[in-house]
């Protein structure tokens, strides 16, 4: 039997004004288990807390009920008070007689009656409380960042800065991601490479950061603080630690006809390649799909020219297993495929390009060495049409494109238009828009400059059709404000293709048991208050894998994710919430209902041996709760048909005791 103390707070006149506190403490004295009951003006004050502490010692209390304000206000306070007096913090229950009684009722008599009922319910619950100890689990002080774009780079740098080791897994041969492919960045127009590559070098030189380039995550197990991850290092047929990145092999390789993905396939690279000059790690990679040596066993030119002896045609995929305390998803985005948008003639004409291709066309390291030339004939285009919202803001039922706004297109299109007019004032630039969306620091000013200073023709309306005619592209579009249909003979059409999460995100989310929305963007733990955390503890989100973002936003989210990771890794032990689910093995059916409703993947199953009544041994599948992962929602307790699942702190018996006390 518990020895319960009841402490009724007046809260000045906040409670005492509508509730007869004397009567309440008197009435609760007679409840089962109650050995002490008192009231005081301000229970949360030092003096009030001392009353509680003294009573715990004097009356050897095993549980206390504080009738006061909302537990959301002072539950933590009174738990600390109890702990200071040597009582388990979870032996404290609060009866909310202020917010849910004295403040909403006017009549003293009925207010007092209700306060007594609420007090009785709390007493009934405490009678069934058991001391709870938060589970502790150690923290592996190493973080994993999946994706080596600007988001992953920034997150890794910030974590390393705080002194924790970080690994970056990047599926491409180099880190840098999409930002490395960009020419200039809005709205300041500084060169992307100039601000990105120093960061890439920082990453390479930081002894806390390891880069697993040309690698993919194969398997993730464990939970917050204790993830075990298998990383597949794909064979690049070049010894990473031996290769000096001199690039001789990439010049001598006889296989010259490999589409260069870094330049969006607008020129060719060799079968052995370094994606771009500032690649990190600056190590060559042999593309097994094109290498003659790997395909037919005849060639071997690169091995002959390599003075360092780095080429190794026998290299195999390697699996590395590592433990991590936290994982950051930074898998980034891709422009969507234009295959379904026949009306823009993307697949018919080389001169219809996406914006990312346009970036490469204007980049000094691109296929045209920075000169804006048409891909088809290398001529300078005089009329350029930019089409916005291609595949963004589409109806869900339309089956092509995405429902969301891709967010970055308005600004980069303004940038492209402006830069084109700046470099080639003889060019006519048209931008067809539905809305121009420029919320952001110095964004609208930027767009207005494109219109006012650079004379870009912004036309409200959408392009309906692009048809190649001779060496021109006939663009038929509407000008909604003039209620006119326009026919423009363009030399180049640039499509602002919608962006979508990288294809690797979905399988990764499954491995992480992290949730995703219907568009395959990772879901955040709370859309406003926890935007860089996944609902799965220990998993954080950085960059466009969570939603469309521009670079500044990505970087700030990357740093925010890093801050969260640092906060986690700084702890030696993780104290869990002790109010977690608990499975009673004897009653568990092993039916998996609980597992299916658990949003956190906290439930696993094991085959256990049970002695049967006839002394034989039977093996049964039973559920086990990982207390470090469980957040204590209780969905499993109701899904469980046998009632084997219970929730500590909100046990079935406790809630029923409250129901009974109220309904009595």
């Amino acid at each position, binding site marked *: 039997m518990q020895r319960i103390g009841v402490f009724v707070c007046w809260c000045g006149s906040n409670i005492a004004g509508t509730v007869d506190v004397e009567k309440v403490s008197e009435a609760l004295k007679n409840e089962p288990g109650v050995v002490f009951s008192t009231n005081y003006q301000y229970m949360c004050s030092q003096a009030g807390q001392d009353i509680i502490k003294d009573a715990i010692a004097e009356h050897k209390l095993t549980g206390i009920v504080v009738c006061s304000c909302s537990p959301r206000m002072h539950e933590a306070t009174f738990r600390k008070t109890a702990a200071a007096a040597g009582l388990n913090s979870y032996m404290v229950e609060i009866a909310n007689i202020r917010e849910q009684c004295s403040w909403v009722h006017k009549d003293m008599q009925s207010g007092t009656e209700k306060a007594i009922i609420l007090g009785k319910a709390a007493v009934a619950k405490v009678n069934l409380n058991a001391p709870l100890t938060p589970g502790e689990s150690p923290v592996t002080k190493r973080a994993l960042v999946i994706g080596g774009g600007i988001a992953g780079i920034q997150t890794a740098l910030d974590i390393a800065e705080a002194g924790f080791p970080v690994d970056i897994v990047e599926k491409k041969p180099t880190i840098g991601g999409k930002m490395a492919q960009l020419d200039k960045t809005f709205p300041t127009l500084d060169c992307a490479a100039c601000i990105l590559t120093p960061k890439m070098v920082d990453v390479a030189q930081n002894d806390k950061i390891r880069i697993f380039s040309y690698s993919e995550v194969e398997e993730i197990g464990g939970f917050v603080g204790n993830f075990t991850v298998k990383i597949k290092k794909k064979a690049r047929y070049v010894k990473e630690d031996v290769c000096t990145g001199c690039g001789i092999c990439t010049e001598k390789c006889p296989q010259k006809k490999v589409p260069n993905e870094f330049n969006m396939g607008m020129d060719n690279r060799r079968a052995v390649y370094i994606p771009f000059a500032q690649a990190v790690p600056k190590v060559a990679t042999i593309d097994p799909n094109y290498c003659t040596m790997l395909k037919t066993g005849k060639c071997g030119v690169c091995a002959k020219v390599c003075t360092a002896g780095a080429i190794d045609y026998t290299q195999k995929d390697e699996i590395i297993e590592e433990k991590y305390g936290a994982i950051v998803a930074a898998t980034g985005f891709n422009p969507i495929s234009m295959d379904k948008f026949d009306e823009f003639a993307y697949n018919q004409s080389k001169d219809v390009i996406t914006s990312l291709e346009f970036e490469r066309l204007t980049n000094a390291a691109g296929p045209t060495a920075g000169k804006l030339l048409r891909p088809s004939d290398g001529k300078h285009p005089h009329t350029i049409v930019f089409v916005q919202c291609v595949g963004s803001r589409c109806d869900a039922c339309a089956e092509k494109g995405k429902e969301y706004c891709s967010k970055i297109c308005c600004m980069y299109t303004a940038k492209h238009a402006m830069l084109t007019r700046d470099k080639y004032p003889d060019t006519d630039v048209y931008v067809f828009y539905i809305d121009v969306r420029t919320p952001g620091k110095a964004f609208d000013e930027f767009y207005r400059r494109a219109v006012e200073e650079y004379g870009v023709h912004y036309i409200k309306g959408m392009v309906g059709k692009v048809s190649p005619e001779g060496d021109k592209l006939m663009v038929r579009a509407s000008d909604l404000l003039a209620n006119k249909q326009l026919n423009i003979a363009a030399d180049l059409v640039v499509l602002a293709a919608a962006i979508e999460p990288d294809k690797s995100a979905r399988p990764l989310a499954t491995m992480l048991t992290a949730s995703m929305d219907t568009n395959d963007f990772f*879901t955040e733990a709370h859309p406003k208050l926890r935007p860089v955390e996944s609902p799965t503890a220990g998993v954080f989100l950085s960059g466009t894998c969570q939603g469309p973002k521009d670079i500044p936003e990505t970087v700030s989210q990357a740093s925010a994710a890093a801050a969260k990771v640092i906060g986690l890794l700084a702890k030696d032990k993780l104290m869990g919430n002790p109010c977690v689910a608990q499975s009673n093995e004897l009653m568990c059916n092993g039916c998996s209902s609980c597992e299916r409703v658990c949003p956190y993947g906290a439930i696993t199953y094991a085959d256990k041996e049970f002695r049967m009544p006839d002394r034989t041994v039977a093996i049964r599948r039973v559920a086990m709760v990982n207390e470090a992962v469980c957040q204590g929602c209780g*969905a499993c307790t109701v899904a469980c048909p046998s009632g084997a699942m219970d*929730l500590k702190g909100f046990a079935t018996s406790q*809630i029923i005791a*409250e129901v009974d006390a109220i309904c009595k």
Partner: protein
Amino acid sequence: MQINNEFKPKIVAFCCNWCSYAGADLAGNNRLAYPECVNIIRVPCSCRVNPIFILRAFQRGADGVIICGCHPGDCHYTSGNYYTRRRMALLFSMLNYLGIEKERIRLEWVSAAEGAKFAATMNEFTEAVTALGENKRLEDLRCKK
């Protein structure tokens, strides 16, 4: 004055800790009155509410039971209230099928910001239950004192 003879129902309200309980607190902060007969039981999430609790409350003499949770999509635990919604849809429909007055049981989504909605809901629900009178169909006579 007939107030003393007037039927006063007993109402149990299950409120999720993160939204509806906070909404109830906000109603308190704003001094938005609702009847004394509403007694709140705090649960971590509306998905913790087992149909057994509801039936137990009726059995023990509650005249109305209301379950409050975060709005769909806003669950602190991401999906808890979606399960609640399915469970309660089936339970409510079953009780109705058995001839239990459907006004006795209700589910409302109340966010932490909706103090006014909480108070209004409780007023409205109490009124509806009062109009029905005592819960006779679900009560266990042995529990009557």
